[in-house]
């Protein structure tokens, strides 16, 4: 492939394309299907929010992209392509080249990615040397630069400190510095601000946004917080009980939702600027995978459900990258955020 065609591919085609992803876990009841026909894409420089409550399958989706599901007790079908390259067939060694280099991940709890026994600097140095093959000296200079970049004061001194010497917000910044040290094309952020105080959350969201812009990086942002999505995401994929139920731009999904579950989430979400609107709960809870209904999975909790909603329902394309999984989408007039 010539350089120019590679660049064209870069501009037009998605950084991440997930197509027909299904995941089964081994359980005492045999193989249990937890993800079903999940398809969506993350374009160049795009931030896509993967939204849903606990049990919706959003974290399993992001772990499959990284090939981090347990190999023996899980089965994966479907395609996951990173810049056109299929990740499914890669060996463990090949996957390790991709992780940290092309895809990086940050978590709610920074200590899942930081090793308490090594200094922050040594951890960045190890990653940079492993993936970019730089010398120790270059890597260390890069580590200091990265720490300064993510807003850690005194990076020259703090590079030799251990994770426990950092405060919660600073640890989150250090984790981001580590994740971005090899300039990945895609950052997967799994609830990275959920455990943080709001004033620190605001700082970290700004940092992720700046880093994505500076590095031409795409972000898959996994969260249950619609306020965070409204703040940082260009596009939204709403998941429910292991399926994608709606996809669109943030504006479309928030202002003209087409799935009753999306409407339900928006009506249940408190708004710090608005006390007049009554909070309407969604009755019931997300079913566990062994109780997923055979028909529409939301039907039991849906106030618009009819008999035909007991039948399985496919994802319908409403336009380019705009989709909904609902039998009644074209008859319902749903309420969006105001």
């Amino acid at each position, binding site marked *: 492939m010539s350089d120019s065609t590679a660049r064209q591919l870069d501009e037009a085609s998605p950084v991440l394309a997930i197509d027909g992803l299904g995941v089964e876990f081994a359980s005492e009841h045999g193989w249990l299907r937890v993800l079903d026909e999940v398809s969506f894409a993350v374009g160049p420089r795009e931030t896509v929010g993967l939204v849903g409550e*606990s049990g919706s399958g959003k974290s399993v989706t992001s772990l499959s992209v990284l090939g981090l599901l347990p190999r023996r007790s899980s089965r994966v079908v479907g395609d996951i392509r990173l810049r056109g390259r299929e990740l499914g067939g890669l060996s463990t060694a090949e996957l390790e080249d991709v992780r940290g280099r092309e895809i990086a991940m940050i978590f709610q709890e920074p200590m899942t990615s930081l090793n308490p026994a090594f200094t922050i600097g040594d951890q960045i140095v190890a990653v940079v040397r492993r993936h970019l093959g730089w010398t120790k000296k270059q890597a260390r200079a890069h580590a200091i630069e990265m720490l300064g970049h993510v807003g850690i004061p005194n990076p020259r001194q703090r590079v030799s400190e251990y994770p426990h010497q950092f405060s919660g917000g600073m640890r989150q910044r250090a984790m981001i510095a580590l994740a971005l040290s090899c300039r990945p094309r895609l950052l997967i952020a799994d609830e990275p601000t959920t455990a943080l105080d709001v004033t620190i959350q605001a700082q970290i969201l700004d940092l992720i946004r700046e880093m994505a812009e500076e590095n031409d990086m795409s972000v898959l942002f996994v969260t249950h917080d619609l306020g965070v999505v409204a703040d940082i995401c260009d596009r939204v994929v709403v998941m429910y009980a292991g399926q994608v139920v709606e996809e669109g731009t943030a504006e479309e999904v928030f202002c003209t939702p087409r799935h009753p579950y999306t409407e339900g989430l928006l009506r249940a979400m408190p708004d710090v600027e608005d006390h007049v609107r009554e909070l309407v709960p969604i009755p019931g809870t997300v079913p566990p995978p062994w109780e997923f209904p055979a028909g529409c999975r939301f039907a039991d909790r849906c106030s618009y459900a009819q008999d035909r909603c007991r039948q399985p329902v496919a994802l319908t394309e409403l336009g380019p990258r705009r989709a909904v999984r609902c039998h009644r989408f074209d008859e319902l007039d749903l309420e969006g955020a105001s």
Partner: protein
Amino acid sequence: MNDQAAVPAGTSGKTPLLEVDDLEVAYRIGRGRRAQDLIAVSGVSFHIDHGETFAVVGESGSGKSTTARAITRTLPVRAGNIRLGGRELTELSGRELRRIRSDVQMVFQDPYSSLNPSMLIRDSIAEPLRVHTDLDSHARDAAAHDLIQAVGLLPEHLNRYPYEFSGGQRQRIAIARAIATSPSLVICDEALSALDVSTQNQIIRLLEEIRQTKSVAYLFIAHDLAVVRHIADRVGVMYLGRMMESGPTERVYNAPAHPYTEALLSAVPVPHPRRQRARRRMLLPGDVPNPLEPPSGCVFRTRCPRAMDICAEEVPMPFPAVGGGEVACHLHTSGPELGGESVRVLSTA
């Protein structure tokens, strides 16, 4: 000390249900010569009327949970007064304290850690009645039967164990247990934080229903400012162990009188892309200071975009805020003036 409340603090002139006055709570850190006192809460005052919902909001380390624990006397109070129905709590001990505790119950963030995993739901719910009342086992059973239905679950659930329930259901069980002794005050310490939005609203509705039927008052300890706006009558904002401001919820949210409240509110994202992107954030630099070495004067001054010289020298005292409540900020007493009036209202946007 009088048994009767000396000074009514409520505006109604009636004795408030709970009065907290100049509360100070300290933890001892380290041992021997290295021992140091960490002042977790200092100079905190507020009151809660009968049947009212008062929320204390703040970030980690603000002292909001410590305040709650001091009220239940599960932490020693170093200074100040706590009166429940006019009765001083800080001096009670033994049986008297136990009696008061049946009148103040708590619901925590994680019901799994407050319910005994090897105890049937029936026994968990009836336990406070066994400790605090003379009811026999029949009467306690009957009460458990009523309580489980009052929180929207079924009598058959009484014969199950905590692991058989979802997070939202467990929170309902914890609430049933908390209201078993008909307390006049229930303290909810981050009771909604671990729940998904759809479940969170179910629990908010339940608490509101209980407030109306059982005329209970709530002290809500929370970090989620959006939820608090929807549930609280009045709100107090804490930072580094001190009350920055308090007042009617709508006044505090619409016209925050303290720069910290303003920053806190501006940092909460709203679930609407266009509205959220148009909002202006007041970014606070840095982190919350080490509570072992709190800044002199106003504890917020090291991060405050409006700090003045006096803020490092004097601790600001509570001052009546325009529109109701109080604010502890020098801007209101020593700040710049406009047309002979202090620039009191910071932002009404």
